[in-house]
């Protein structure tokens, strides 16, 4: 808004927008609307995909497995138990290590542990079972 327009607007008169400005405004609005619109479309598709039956079932199964391992650790091990989770950083074992937090004390090496904890095939928690054996 330049000075003339400002005074016109302030005095209550109509501030007729110039054609260039109108075209520019339309161009900027179109560019932005196209980019934002495409992204919104993409986002809505994503949300629909997360809410698909297969995705929801997978997530629910994962949630149940997580809570099952959490409870199994607390039922099979005494509180404060020094445990060792072999090769914990390379797969599902990490979940046993992390979900033991606040109950057992994971050890970086087997020498200081009293129990060896691992996740093996089974039916206890989905397709896994928490295996606990004394060292």
């Amino acid at each position, binding site marked *: 808004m330049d000075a003339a327009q400002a005074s016109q607007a302030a005095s209550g008169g109509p501030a007729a927008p110039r054609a260039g400005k109108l075209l520019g405004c339309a161009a900027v609005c179109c560019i932005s609307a196209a*980019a934002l619109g495409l992204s919104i479309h993409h986002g809505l598709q994503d949300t629909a995909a*997360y809410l698909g039956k297969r995705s929801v079932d997978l997530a629910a199964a994962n949630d149940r497995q997580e809570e099952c391992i959490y409870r199994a650790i607390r039922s099979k091990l005494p509180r404060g138990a020094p445990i060792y989770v072999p090769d914990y950083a390379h797969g599902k074992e990490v979940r046993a290590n992390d979900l033991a937090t606040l109950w057992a004390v994971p050890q970086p090496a087997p020498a200081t542990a009293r129990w060896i904890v691992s996740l093996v095939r089974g039916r206890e928690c989905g397709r896994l079972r928490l295996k606990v054996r004394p060292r």
Partner: protein
Amino acid sequence: MSAFVVLIAGLGIPGLLPAFTLARRSPAFIFLAPLVGAAMAAVATELELAIAWSLLLWYVVVAIVVNAVSVAWWIGRGRQQEGSRQSLEWVLLTAAVVGAALVIPLIGLRAQMFGWDAEQIWLTHAMMISGGHRELLSSLQNHSYWSGNPDYPPLVPAAGALAFAFYGLGNLHIAVDMTVLLSACAVGVVATGIATVGSAGRAAAKGGAVAVGAAICVVAFAISGIYGVNGYADLLWAAAAVGAVVWGLVLPRSGSALATAWACAVVASLTKNEGLTTSLVVLAMIAVRYVGATLPLLPDSGGTTATARWVRNGARFAVLLIVPAAPGLAWAALMRLIGLNDRFFSTSSYDESASTRAYATIHGMADHLAVAPVAAAALLVGCCLFRRERKRAGLGNPAWLWLACLASLAIIFYTYVAGSLEIHSWLASSVNRTTIFAQLVLYTELALWPVIALDGTFPARRDQAAVVDVPRRLPATQS
């Protein structure tokens, strides 16, 4: 639902008065309140780790102190008013529209997804924090947890631990929900900032501003993809940092805009390590922009020499940078003190040349920055036709926004090139998340120009008052 209760009762209510003190009568304060609560929980975690006792005890102490300071500020302020105020109708309408827009991506929460980092990092850290000082300290130093990045900042797990304090450890997924809801709040602060740009215009600009603000809510989650709703913290730090950019580097200079930007930067710096580095850069830019502005920190005194002015500006810059950076830097210092370092730089590096890593990084990052040319086109048209309108409204120079974007990309680029993990798998697992900030900044630029263009093409019947509460002693100029 449980997480929403914790968000409101556990974080929002303790953070309400401080958030209102920071943002004043702006729709942002509604979304800022839970973020301020989460930042207080993070500071409480720092105290739990550094001194003793539990998160809950320190959270109560920190909340009481912060609220007492807010009350003291309101009493000390008296009836003094800072510039023009937003109408209550506009504030409520904007908050309602932005809130409604945020519900759309949050529907994804119904899928109950549990991301890898959400479990291995954030849930584990939340349980450590729940255990009190001794458990937290010993677990962070326990080498068994090394792959879970124990040095990561405490805001996300602190919010999770607070949820566990409300509902117990029976529902582990509540920690994920807390992260997602906090991310939504941070996006809400960005959206209300964009809406504020058009708040003083005519219906076209006002409506357009609220519409693009609402659009950004969906766009932010679209950029993040699955990581926005499965408990990852990347959207939270990125949106908080973009909030700092919008309120500190785009909106006209004012006390409330600065305070809101600081709060956003504190949240970003306490969420992830890349959030800390990015917010430090953004805070430095905000400090540069505000040095010379008339703020009540160091009042002007006539007849000062050039040296005195230089010293005064240096002191202003230091205050503007260090005060909001302190909570994030305190956590980083605590981590070094207990012997923890960033895992990405601490292991021996792979046999890859710097050029191989740089080439792979450039390709990896470019794939996620397809919006950059479009944003550049909007910038070009906007600068050619509406530069004067932007200047007259007191909005920051668009260069600040682009500079923040480039600085963030430079930091991420350096981390990938100088880091020690195998570059291709590292990029594959993270580059879509580390570029969320840059993408959101570019989409914000795309959202801002239509508002400025509508305001310039259909100007409001107003004198040269600025868009928001610009200090009266400061002329509204582009800065």
